[in-house]
């Protein structure tokens, strides 16, 4: 099986595996206690925090570990809205944010808050000017923007939006899930969220960073863990492994990022050449190094995934027939691009050139056969 779905989850980095096994032995005790094994666990936890903080451009005491990227988003959005309740209850977010952001916005609206969703252009990039205008509305408590889109790879204008937020005095939550460990991070965030399994760490570790001076109040009952930001006993071994994966990933990225990006370029160029009636979506240049998405006219996404799976390729799709909701991806909808016959290819670390070549070799005939089965020739 050739795994081309790194944007869903990156396979565990070898550095994370080693660190995890070691920390299961040395970091199991309660880091909040005062005996030897507890102090050892606390030391490991704080070292991991310092390492992750350095990569994020944060102070260690601004960084808390959550149980997932989604939980980090929920806490980041709800906690900041809570902390800013006296300022107002207006929330601004991009139209192609991760569903965890949009579902939280839905809850906020349900509870009497107001929400403005800022649209995107054809490439999936949010309109920075419209976003700036939206955050200047009095009573805006929080704005949310991802660093890059998880389905089409397009980078968002975070620096411009951060400047506008600063001018308006509005905190900006940046969902960096797809870019941590892969691209330099923007500096202008008030709250930043990420997820370790996207960079090669284990599942079950998210990151919530809240800049000093940002008002934040937990939406949960009081709990002493993680500086009262995240409830529950920390998974120290997994956090240690997540930090080890991130260190390793950042060290490799200078070589691996451009290599993956060149392979993505090859897919972007070759797919429309090899397969008729294909639309490659997302920004061709301002994009993540590892994600490429395209849609094939007259092809059912589900059939395409099944055939690719049979041929030994793991990819994902934003087509409605592949979604549990039977709705097409809100990202593709907001961009106004084809939603059927959609394939997202996302390259994991270490994927070989030969794997990409083989994918490009099998794709045209698979598409042709599915079209023929629907009477399209």
């Amino acid at each position, binding site marked *: 099986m050739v795994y081309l779905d790194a944007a869903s989850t990156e396979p565990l980095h070898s550095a994370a595996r080693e660190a995890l096994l070691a920390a299961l032995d040395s970091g199991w005790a309660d880091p909040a206690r005062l005996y030897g094994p507890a102090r050892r666990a606390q030391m490991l936890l704080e070292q991991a925090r310092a390492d992750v903080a350095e990569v994020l451009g944060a102070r260690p005491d601004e960084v808390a570990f959550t149980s997932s990227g989604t939980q980090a988003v929920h806490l980041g959005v709800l906690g900041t809205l809570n902390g800013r309740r006296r300022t107002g209850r207006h929330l601004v977010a991009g*139209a192609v944010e991760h*569903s965890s952001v*949009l*579902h939280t*916005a*839905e809850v906020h609206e349900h509870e009497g808050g107001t*929400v403005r*969703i*800022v*649209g*995107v*252009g*054809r490439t999936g990039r*949010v*309109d920075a000017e*419209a976003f700036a205008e*939206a955050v200047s509305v009095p009573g805006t408590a929080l704005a949310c923007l991802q660093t890059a889109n998880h389905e089409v790879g397009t980078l968002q204008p975070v620096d411009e939006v951060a400047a506008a937020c600063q001018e308006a005095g509005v905190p900006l939550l940046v969902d960096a899930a797809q870019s941590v460990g892969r691209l330099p991070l923007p500096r202008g965030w008030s709250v930043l969220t990420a997820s370790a399994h996207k960079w090669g760490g284990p599942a079950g570790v998210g990151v919530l960073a809240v800049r000093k001076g940002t008002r934040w109040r937990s939406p949960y009952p009081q709990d002493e863990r993680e500086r009262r930001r995240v409830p529950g006993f920390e998974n120290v071994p997994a956090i240690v492994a997540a930090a080890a994966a991130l260190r390793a990933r950042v060290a490799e990225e200078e070589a691996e990022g451009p290599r993956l990006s060149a392979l993505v370029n090859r897919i972007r160029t070759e797919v429309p050449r090899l397969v008729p*009636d294909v*639309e490659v979506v997302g920004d061709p240049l301002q994009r993540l190094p590892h994600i490429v998405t395209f849609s094939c*006219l*007259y*092809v*059912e996404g589900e059939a395409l995934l099944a055939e690719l799976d049979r041929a030994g390729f793991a990819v994902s799709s934003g*087509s*409605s*027939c592949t979604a549990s909701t039977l*709705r*097409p991806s*809100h990202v*593709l*909808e*907001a*961009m*106004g*691009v*084809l*939603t*059927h*016959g959609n394939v997202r290819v996302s390259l994991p670390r270490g994927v070989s050139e030969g794997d990409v070549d083989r994918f490009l070799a099998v794709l045209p005939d698979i598409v042709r056969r599915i079209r023929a089965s*629907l*009477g*399209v020739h």
Partner: protein
Amino acid sequence: MWRRRSGAGKSEPEEQWSEPRAEAREPAALTIDALGRKCPIPIIMLADQINQVPMGAVVEVLADDPAAVTDIPAWCRLKSHAHVGSVEIPQGGWSIQVRRNY
């Protein structure tokens, strides 16, 4: 989750979604009933039949797969036909109008 209903900012891709405007509706030269059919079938039906109407005439596709609302305008853009507009229909679903350009 937020869908097209609240995305009507100025950066919305043009013609992605048109509010019902009586004056913009034209009598269709051909109506394709794709109700109950899943994408990509409504688009395959449209591609198959659009050449049955004269140049400049309007084809109307009735569809209830939400994907069609995005995909038919996208097909028009890719195939250089014109998306005239989309309106909801009383029986559920949408009427999506396309003008044959060539």
